[in-house]
Each structure stands twice: as structure tokens, then as C-alpha cells.
């Protein structure tokens, strides 16, 4: 692009960004003000990127063995560590040689790594000293993604917002959902091919997660894959966590999400007004609560809360479903143990979540000078609590690299975090995984991984993108 056209582009982009901000004010009362808000913010971000010449930040290069790298040079934020199978050795070195480790430079700025189970609990518990604001991923999402999510708010604001949606995962509600989730799991499993290998991630993990999310939100069932699409886009941004989504694509996705979710809200309101029985879904819950019944009028908060539940429940359960199959293939004696004793399923579910640790970390910022395990942390420093390392901590878990389905302290895993932000969906996730394995065992003799898995590029999501498997059905008992 020549200088002239570049500046013209910037000017016209700025102008339309300005227009959008104006129309945002005008449209504040319209049905879809968040469209406009998002568009203004996206144009701002785009313009900034053009001016600063930011382009792709990450290019994959082979990572050397951890033993060949000086401790001070270790950068756990490298989004290719997990994909290249180097994550475990790097984390182990840091955990055992410098458990609270400072990295002065990275594509996401300086940060501390907190790698031991006990230190992570200390940080996660103490929200007064270690704030979850403004973001819980290591980098900064683009401006238009600054939607208000309570996972990145401190008390008291956090508690108020969480209280409004917590009921959707109340035990009573989960019992209501269980039957529906189970029948949807059965449909998926009954349709799986048994005569050829297929991608477990696409056909099982993603499909089941989409169905679960559609149940949770009472989202139009035939459009359920949209939930996955939105969440995938929002959860893999380069500046945020080293992911792959292109900003324009994310933006289009968020616009689509804003439309789809507000349509869902209005449709639900109309059906309720016409006398439909209240459901056990999230939207009904929000509309029945005094504090949130007008949430749609606070678009960024509305979008934030819904997107949080969609993202929170997407990658995490998906990768636990894939990770379980992978782990049982890596440790075949455990598969035998499981078949001999299906009562181990609930404990195995916790152990799979520990082994996979679908979210590698949460980020915090120190609100004052403090000491953590002997290290002096300054006010304003960024800390990354590496759950993925805490779950491999030799001080807590014996033979931590192994999947041991009857591990005594499997439930002490840290994959759901601890403290006020502890995963709100933990019981739902466990329920979903338990049902999956309860339905798999009577159907299949073996689930064999037939090819090396492919992994996601991210420092946040520990994801499996492809897992080719072949099923052996149980012999028919006639």
C-alpha cells in the first residue's frame, strides 16, 4: 500500500469509527445497541494496528529441550510449548528450580509464573492482593472484546454478577438437565461409525459440547454449532493468548453472537409473555431475577455474561472429552481397570480433568507490594497462576504425569481454580463427562487412537484439534 492510500484509508476508517460512536449514543435504546458499540471499538482497534504496523505476532519454530535453556530464558507464554510436547519439561524445571519465576520480557510484557500447587492456592484465594481485573488472560484482548465478564472482576462486583447466574448450575437444575444431556449423548454415540477411523474431536467432543451449551441456554437446537463457532473465535486471539483467530473474523463472529444472543433473549421474553412455562435455562434465570431482568439494556454486560458461559463451557469440556480418550490410550492398563470397575467413573472424571487441565492458567495483577514464596512482587506486576503446572506438582500428586483413575486425591486438582472465581460450571462439566463415560462403556470394547493427535496453538487453552480413533463395538449378546 502506498503512503497516500494508507493515510486515506486510516482517515476514512477513523471517520466511520467516529460515526459509529455517534450512532452508538443515538442507538442506545434500540434493540441492538451492542452491534454499534462493537463496531466502533473494532474500527478503533483496526486503525491502531494499521498505524503501528502490527501484523502476526507468532511464527512457529522448533523449541529446544528444556535442559538446553537457561532458567532465566524460559518463557512459559510461548503458545507452541504445548503443541510441541515440551510444556511438561519446561514447567517441571521452573516448578522445581524457581517456583515463582520472573520473565522480564515476552510478547505479552513482563510476568511472574506461579507454578506450585500451594503457591497457586495462596494467590487464587487472595483477591485483595491479587486482582483478576482487567483481564484473566496473559495479554490484552482487542478493544471490542472488552466486554464485562465477572471472571475478570473483583468482589463485590464479581459476587453480585455471579449470584445472578449461579442458580443455573444449582443441583436441582442439573438434575433437570441430566435426562436431556443423556439422551443427546446417546444420539451422538449411536451414530458413530464403527467401520472406519474418524475424528473424535469433531464428531464427539465438539458435537456434545454444542448440545450441552444449547441445553444450558435453550438456544435454537439446529443452530447449536454457532455457539461453538463464536466461542472458538473469542477464545483464540493472538494478542490475548497467542491464539490464531484473525481480528476481523473475531469481530464478525462477535457481531453475529450479539445478534443471535439478543434475538434469543427477546424470543424467550415473548414466549414467556405468551404463557410458556419457565424453563431451567440461563435466559429464563436472568429474566426472572430482579437484578438482571433488564440485562439486555446493558449490552456489554449482557454479552459479557453470556459469552463467559459459552466460552467457559466450550473448550474446557471439549478438551476433557478428547483428553480422556487420549489419556486412556496412553495408559491402557487404566482402561482395563475402568472396564473392570465402572464405579470408578466419577473419580476418573476428576483425574482426567487434572491430567488434561484444559485451561493452563488464570492471570492476576498485584494490588500492592508483597512477598510470594520468597520473591518480592511489586504493585502492578502481572502473575500467571499455571494450573497446568500445579496439577503436575510432585509435592501433591504421586507420579503426576500418569493418569491413575483411582488416584486418592484426584479431586484436589486445581484445574477449576480456587477462591471466589472457582469454576462456576464445575459440577456441570463433571456431570457431562460422567454421562459420556457411562454411555461409552456399555457400547464400546475399545476406543483406539490410531494417529498422533494435533494440538491447538495457544498458551491458555490446552486443546486437541484432531484425534483420529477407531471404535470396537461390544460383541452383541444375543
Amino acid at each position: 500500500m502506498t503512503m497516500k492510500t494508507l493515510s486515506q484509508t486510516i482517515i476514512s476508517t477513523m471517520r466511520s469509527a467516529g460515526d459509529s460512536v455517534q450512532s452508538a449514543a443515538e442507538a442506545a435504546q434500540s434493540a441492538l445497541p451492542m452491534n454499534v458499540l462493537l463496531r466502533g471499538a473494532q474500527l478503533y482497534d483496526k486503525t491502531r494496528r494499521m498505524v503501528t504496523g502490527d501484523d502476526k505476532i507468532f511464527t512457529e519454530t522448533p523449541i529446544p529441550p528444556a535442559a538446553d535453556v537457561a532458567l532465566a530464558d524460559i518463557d512459559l507464554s510461548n503458545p507452541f510449548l504445548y503443541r510441541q510436547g515440551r510444556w511438561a519439561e519446561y514447567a517441571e524445571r521452573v516448578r522445581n528450580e524457581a517456583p515463582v519465576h520472573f520473565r522480564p520480557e515476552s510478547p505479552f510484557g513482563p510476568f511472574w509464573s506461579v507454578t506450585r500447587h500451594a503457591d497457586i492456592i495462596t494467590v487464587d484465594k487472595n483477591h485483595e492482593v491479587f486482582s483478576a481485573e482487567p483481564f484473566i488472560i496473559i495479554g490484552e484482548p482487542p478493544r471490542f472484546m472488552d466486554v464485562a465478564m465477572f471472571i475478570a472482576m473483583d468482589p463485590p462486583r464479581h459476587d453480585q454478577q455471579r449470584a445472578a447466574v449461579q442458580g443455573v448450575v444449582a443441583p436441582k437444575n442439573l438434575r433437570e438437565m441430566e435426562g436431556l444431556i443423556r439422551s443427546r449423548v446417546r444420539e451422538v454415540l449411536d451414530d458413530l461409525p464403527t467401520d472406519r477411523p474418524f475424528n473424535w474431536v469433531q464428531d464427539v467432543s465438539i458435537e456434545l459440547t454444542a448440545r450441552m451449551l444449547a441445553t444450558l441456554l435453550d438456544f435454537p437446537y439446529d443452530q447449536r454449532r454457532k455457539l461453538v463457532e463464536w466461542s472458538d473465535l473469542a477464545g483464540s486471539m493472538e494478542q490475548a493468548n497467542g491464539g490464531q483467530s484473525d481480528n476481523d473474523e473475531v469481530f464478525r463472529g462477535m457481531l453475529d453472537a450479539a445478534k443471535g444472543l439478543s434475538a434469543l433473549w427477546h424470543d424467550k421474553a415473548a414466549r414467556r409473555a405468551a404463557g410458556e412455562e419457565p424453563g431451567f435455562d440461563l435466559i429464563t434465570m436472568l429474566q426472572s431475577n430482579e437484578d438482571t431482568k433488564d440485562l439486555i439494556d446493558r449490552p456489554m454486560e449482557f454479552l459479557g455474561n453470556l459469552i463467559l458461559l459459552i466460552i467457559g463451557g466450550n473448550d474446557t469440556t471439549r478438551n476433557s472429552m478428547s483428553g480422556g480418550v487420549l489419556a486412556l490410550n496412553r495408559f491402557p492398563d487404566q482402561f482395563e481397570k475402568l472396564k473392570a470397575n465402572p464405579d470408578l467413573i466419577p473419580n476418573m472424571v476428576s483425574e482426567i480433568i487434572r491430567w488434561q487441565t484444559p485451561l493452563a492458567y488464570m492471570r492476576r495483577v498485584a494490588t500492592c507490594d508483597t512477598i510470594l514464596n520468597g520473591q518480592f512482587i511489586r504493585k502492578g506486576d502481572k502473575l500467571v497462576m499455571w494450573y497446568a503446572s500445579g496439577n503436575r506438582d510432585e509435592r501433591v500428586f504421586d507420579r503426576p504425569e500418569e493418569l491413575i483413575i483411582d488416584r486418592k486425591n484426584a479431586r484436589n486438582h486445581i484445574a477449576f481454580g480456587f477462591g471466589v472465581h472457582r469454576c462456576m460450571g464445575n459440577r456441570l462439566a463433571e456431570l457431562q463427562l460422567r454421562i459420556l463415560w457411562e454411555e461409552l462403556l456399555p457400547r464400546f470394547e475399545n476406543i483406539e487412537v490410531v494417529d498422533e493427535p494435533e494440538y491447538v496453538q495457544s498458551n491458555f487453552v490446552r486443546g486437541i484439534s484432531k484425534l483420529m480413533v477407531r471404535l470396537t463395538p461390544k460383541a452383541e449378546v444375543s
Partner: protein
Amino acid sequence: MSSVTFVTHEGESHEVPLDDDRSLMQIAVDNGVPGIDGDCGGEAACGTCHIVVDPAWTDTVGMSTEVEEEMLAMNPERHPTSRLACQMTAAEKWDGLVVQVPEFQM
């Protein structure tokens, strides 16, 4: 021998030996009382050891402390006498204590 009774939300009673100097959460977990998981190992950081104390006993065992409130405050089944069992160190004079185990454990 002294004992403590946990009553599940389904109304089932589990009377178990009360070892003093251990937390009620540890006692429940070691005796396999259903509904108490103790996921954080007693750090008041998970809310999976939520119990409700019979009001007749609150003078003896005390009310929730500030650190317990952090996790209890978000629980929709929270009662005025709710506690986190991991923050309650059993004492001899607790013999005969009865607590409810609410279904909602975070």
C-alpha cells in the same frame, strides 16, 4: 466414644466418630460422608464442605468467620448458620453435634 452426625439433603443420617483436633471436613471425608468433597484440602477456597449447623449448637461451635464468608456468600443455599466444615476444628464438647449437608456445594 463421642460422635457427630451429618444429615444429607436426602435426610440420611451418618453418625461418625468425632476425633478432636481434626476438622469436621476431614472427619466427613475420612468416613465417606456423601456430599462433602473437600476439594481444596481445607483452605476455605472451594466451598465443597458446606454444612448448616443446628441452631441449638451455634453457641458451642460458633458462626462463620470472615474467610468462610468469601465462599459462602455466593451459595444460593446459604443459611444463617452455614459454615465451611474445614474451618471447624472438632472439640470434645462437640459430642452429639448434628449438622445438615446442603445439596449445593459450589
